[in-house]
């Protein structure tokens, strides 16, 4: 498959601060490629340069045969951008927003109207099309935000953390829509700091930290690099103090890291089976009942931990 995007030694500095430090990668047509990294890693800056918003300090990127440095206008016709923050006119209706942005991308007349109807259907807002965006929930606004990026059927869609700050239901809908778009042939560059999203969506993943691309490959290629780590996931009762238990488990021999999300505790360890008994014992000592235990194969979280010594959410 031909590469639709080739990034070549891309550098972006703000004064003395290096936001992107000479990264190189490519994306094949039809692929979902995720840039995974914590906040401040350089994901948004990378997308901003690739989408021609900023000039790179050095290096270049070629999209569909056009340089982002030398031919920004040609690049803009090929790409769609879904920014991290909502970029909509809240006093316009959903339809008016789509119409305005469609015309900015050279759509007009019947083709524009037909495309607006398709996108409204796609984002599930056909019945709210004529209501002002400011009356929408956060999730609905996110969907309009995505709809604007899809309207002109770009060859390459940049999605910059599109699920930040929304409810699980809307997040699920967005992830499903990304997979749908990809099935229809759209190439997607997706940035996230959620390991689960990158794992679920991506054909290939680039892990970025402090402006450096520290790992690149398919998920299996990446996890093979750090095969010695496994994840042990515990689900405990809502009545119990998950933070206190995690704190106690951090002192168990063999536990490299313990993270808590709601009532789930994830333990990173070289050998999950070995720590299982002491973990259950510590829980029992505190009168905490473990509902389920899951041992996960090495994942991207473990890869990041292995490469940086930090968790993605640090």
């Amino acid at each position, binding site marked *: 498959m031909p590469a639709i995007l080739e990034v070549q030694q891309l550098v972006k500095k703000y004064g003395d601060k290096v936001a992107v430090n000479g990264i190189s990668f490519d994306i094949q047509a039809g692929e979902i490629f995720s840039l995974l990294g914590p906040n401040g890693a350089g994901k948004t800056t990378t997308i901003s340069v690739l989408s021609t918003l900023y000039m790179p300090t050095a290096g270049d990127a070629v999209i569909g045969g056009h340089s982002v440095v030398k031919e920004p206008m040609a690049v803009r016709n090929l790409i769609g951008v879904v*920014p991290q923050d909502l970029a909509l006119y809240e006093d316009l209706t959903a339809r*008016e927003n789509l119409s305005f*942005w469609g015309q900015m*991308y050279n759509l007009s007349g019947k083709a524009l109207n037909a495309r607006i109807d398709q996108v409204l259907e796609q984002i599930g807002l056909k019945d709210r099309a004529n209501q002002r965006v400011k009356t929408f929930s956060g999730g609905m606004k996110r969907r309009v935000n995505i709809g604007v990026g899809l309207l002109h059927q770009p060859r390459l869609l940049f999605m910059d953390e599109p699920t930040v700050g929304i409810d699980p239901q809307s997040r699920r809908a967005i992830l499903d829509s990304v997979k749908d778009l990809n099935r229809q042939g759209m190439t997607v560059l997706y940035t996230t700091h959620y390991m689960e999203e990158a794992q679920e969506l991506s054909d290939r993943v680039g892990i970025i930290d402090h402006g450096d691309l520290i790992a690149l490959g398919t998920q299996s290629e990446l996890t093979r690099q750090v095969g010695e780590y496994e994840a042990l996931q515990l689900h405990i009762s809502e009545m119990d103090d998950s933070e206190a238990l995690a704190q106690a488990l951090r002192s168990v021999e063999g536990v490299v890291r313990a993270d808590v999300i709601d009532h789930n505790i994830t333990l990173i360890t070289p050998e999950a089976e070995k720590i299982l008994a002491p973990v259950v014992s510590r829980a029992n000592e505190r009168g905490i009942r473990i509902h389920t235990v899951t041992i996960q194969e090495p994942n991207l979280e473990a890869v990041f931990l292995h490469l940086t010594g930090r968790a993605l959410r640090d």
Partner: protein
Amino acid sequence: MKKILLLGWKDLTLAFRDRAALIMMLLAPFALTLGLGLVTGGLSGGSGSSGLSAIPLVLVNQDSGQLGGELVNVFQSAELAGLVAPQVSGDAAAARKLVDDDQTAAAVIIPAGFTASIIPDAGTGQSGAAAQIELYTNPSRPTSSGIIQAIVDQFINQVEIGRVGAQVTVSGLIASGRIEPQQAAVLGEQLAARQAQAADNPRITLTGVEADSPAVEFNVLAYMAPGMALMFLMFTVSNGGRTLLVEKAQGTLPRLLVAPLSPAQVLLGKMFGVFLTGTAQMLILIVASTLLFQLKWGNPLAVLVLVLACVVGAVGWGMLITALVKTPGQAASIGSAVMLIFGILGGSFFDISLLPSWFRTVSKITPNAWGLDGFSRLALGSGLAEIVPDIAGLLAMGVVLFGVSLFLFMRRGVIQR
């Protein structure tokens, strides 16, 4: 070009969906005009105290006849006492010098033989050689001198009505055989003189006369309404410029900058939006005040051209404010301050032609001053040709300020990659 128009139309739509902006754009200037009109008596027909008072002028009466004295009496009448402050002089050259030195708004010079040129001699029945009143006006005080001109015009109109009326009456009496042709000259003189005396009646007022009366029709609201409209136009343009920073903060500007249009198109589109909004605001205020206050703004084409020029000048300031500040909040604060300062400096609250010349010079940095000058001239009957300097001043202001703003935008990288 289409995208620039679309950007402008989008901003116009957003402006008219913003209730707070609508209040400031339309309701506030209207309410202030109405309020100031009530305070100054502009709605009840008095000469008021809106700043259009004690207009200094010099009267030079070289006419030995009756009409010259009548015109002096008109200016010295109780009805115009609050409006004009006449000073009588016998020296026409000295009177003109007072105008040239900006000591007075106008000199009214009534030439010798003025009465004789209108009223036929009782003995011969012949009128004297044509003699015209000279109105020597101060171009830097267009409103004041326009009012004096309107009073003089009205006096002449009434004298003319008297003269023609007397001729028709005398001809009718001769035709019906009620008087002999030899009596015509004496009777004609008596009738014309009686009509001329009517010029001293209280119909010469600022407002509040019968619809069919030919009295002076300068309404203080015709000064207040453009003053307020121009002041709040400054709000609209600073608020419109502010939307560029709002769009930057809310992410729509970056989104525009990665769409297939150039930064110049984005900036021009934003400017066009402010221009459209300002124009719509001015036109709505003009139409509303015409319908509700029966204001006469003057030649419609000239008014439209002047409105467009005012908006160009004001948009220049709006863009400059936007280029100088960093946040939408700063733009709002500075925009409001500039609106008030320009309102005072530009004469939106009082007639600056009564103030020292240095003040009037400084006021020329504001679109308010140029605009008010033009609107005052148009309300007093001038045409497009007479307001060309105002239009040129406003357009030059807009172009220069746009250039400076563009330079600042580029330097700060607001619209650049």
